[in-house]
């Protein structure tokens, strides 16, 4: 199983959209995909048409019961979505209390890794959506994956948030004696603006080693897709945005992306 985490300590950069769009492209290839929402705002579930406050259990319950997790218990918390072969481990508002409740316990950053381990035979891919704050949940998401995808909105001051995110990863690697692979993904690129090409050039100058050489264009189809609660690959398969995520997937699954 491949495990990817989509993270950026900045909100509104396209994290959730990236999770859903990659998942959509993967299931179209016949892969079994689990998406995991670690953001208390539960916008991933909302995108997929699942109201987190209406479902009886969520990732929160698994964290609370982290000492007694079994495969069947975890499976019971995973919900199917309206998209074939795409399942969701949903978030809930209560996740916002995890730092306060469990943040002082040793090993609390490894709960999600343990959860995914338990269901790894059921899926080909797990893609994790992150909250925009550095806390127990983001640490869990980062500790569970080998590859981190960092969407960066190509706009004025985009690099500020990116620097912070990469610093977080480096500090974590120092602690864990692990090396995260990370890929920077330029998003919401709008060539008609001044800011987008400028931000892209800045990314190329500062992060060329980690920069995906494609880009995700700004595309209103993403909004349509989220309103329809489906991945863009399913409601507008030939849109520019959908094609761009398909290319990104090709890259991630290629030699360089996996490396």
């Amino acid at each position, binding site marked *: 199983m491949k495990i990817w985490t989509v993270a950026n300590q900045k909100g509104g950069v396209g994290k959730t959209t990236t999770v859903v769009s990659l998942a959509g492209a993967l299931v179209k290839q016949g892969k079994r995909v689990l998406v995991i929402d670690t953001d208390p705002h539960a916008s991933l579930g909302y995108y997929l048409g699942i109201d987190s406050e209406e479902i*009886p259990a969520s990732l*929160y319950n698994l964290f609370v019961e982290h000492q007694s*997790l079994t495969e069947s218990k975890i499976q019971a918390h995973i919900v199917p979505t309206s998209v074939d072969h795409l399942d969701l481990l949903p978030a809930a508002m209560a996740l*916002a209390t995890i730092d*306060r409740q469990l943040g002082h316990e*040793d*090993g609390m950053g490894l709960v999600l890794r343990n959860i995914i381990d338990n269901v790894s035979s059921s899926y080909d891919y797990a893609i994790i959506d992150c909250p925009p704050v550095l806390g127990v949940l983001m640490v869990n998401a980062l*500790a569970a994956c080998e590859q981190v995808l960092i969407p960066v909105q190509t706009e004025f001051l985009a690099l500020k948030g990116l620097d912070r995110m990469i610093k977080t990863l480096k500090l974590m690697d120092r602690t864990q004696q692990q090396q995260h692979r990370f890929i920077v993904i330029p998003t919401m690129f709008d060539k008609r603006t001044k800011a987008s090409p400028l931000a892209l050039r800045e990314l190329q100058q500062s992060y060329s080693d980690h920069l995906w050489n494609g880009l995700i264009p700004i595309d209103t189809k993403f909004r349509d897709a989220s309103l329809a609660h489906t991945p863009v690959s399913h409601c507008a398969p030939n849109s520019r945005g959908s094609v761009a995520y398909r290319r990104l997937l090709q890259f991630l699954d290629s030699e360089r992306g996996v490396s």
Partner: protein
Amino acid sequence: MTEHSDIAVVDFFSRLLKEPQSSGPVEKPKVLVKEAELTLSAEQVGLQQLLSKVSAFDEKDEPPKEPSSPFTSSKSKPEIIVSDSTAKETETAADIGSEKSFLHQRLEGEFQALFFKVAGLTLAVPLVELGGIIHEVRVTHLPGQPTWIKGVMTHRDQKINVVDTAAWVMPEKYDANLQKQVDYRYVVLLQNSQWGLACEELLDAESINKEQVNWRVNTAKRPWLAGLVKKQMCGILDVGALIEQLSSQGHIAG
């Protein structure tokens, strides 16, 4: 980020990412000891002590009984870096400091708060004073309790007194009619006390700045109401004062 806050972040990661210990000889956490030498903050002394705690993952098959306080567990005592008495002193000092303080004195400039709803009323509670959330309200009503206690329920082996929040917050408006309408679905736990507030809806956790709150100056009448969050126009709870008041009026040790 400064060098100092880097150390704090690394320390946070070290604790969260502490791998389960194998059944072989116990290794000392070398890196962590080094980090501790760099800093002397009381919090980090506490973290060092926590490192002696046997990780939850060790005994997956037989969940250990949760110790009442993480500090009391001492299966394998680590080398103590700072003497016990120092640690105790810091603790006592902190206790005294927080005992009668006002909420706005305890909070950082920017803090996270959870907003929840009861009978059309929105209330906020700072996350640092929140003990957790229970996703059901299944109480046993005991005779002789005040009307504002909905009942008791057991949560993680602890008895929780669940407050009928609408009845407590607006006794003057709370009649049989309103009582019928209120549909409690969650319990918001107050710190590590035996008290929880029943609520209908969890709204959002948001970052707010101290300046975005109208802090009440005279809190004699309702000590649990620390102020008003201006943007949401909702009350913010002083959890410490609330527990104290609930305990004294409910005749139960909080």
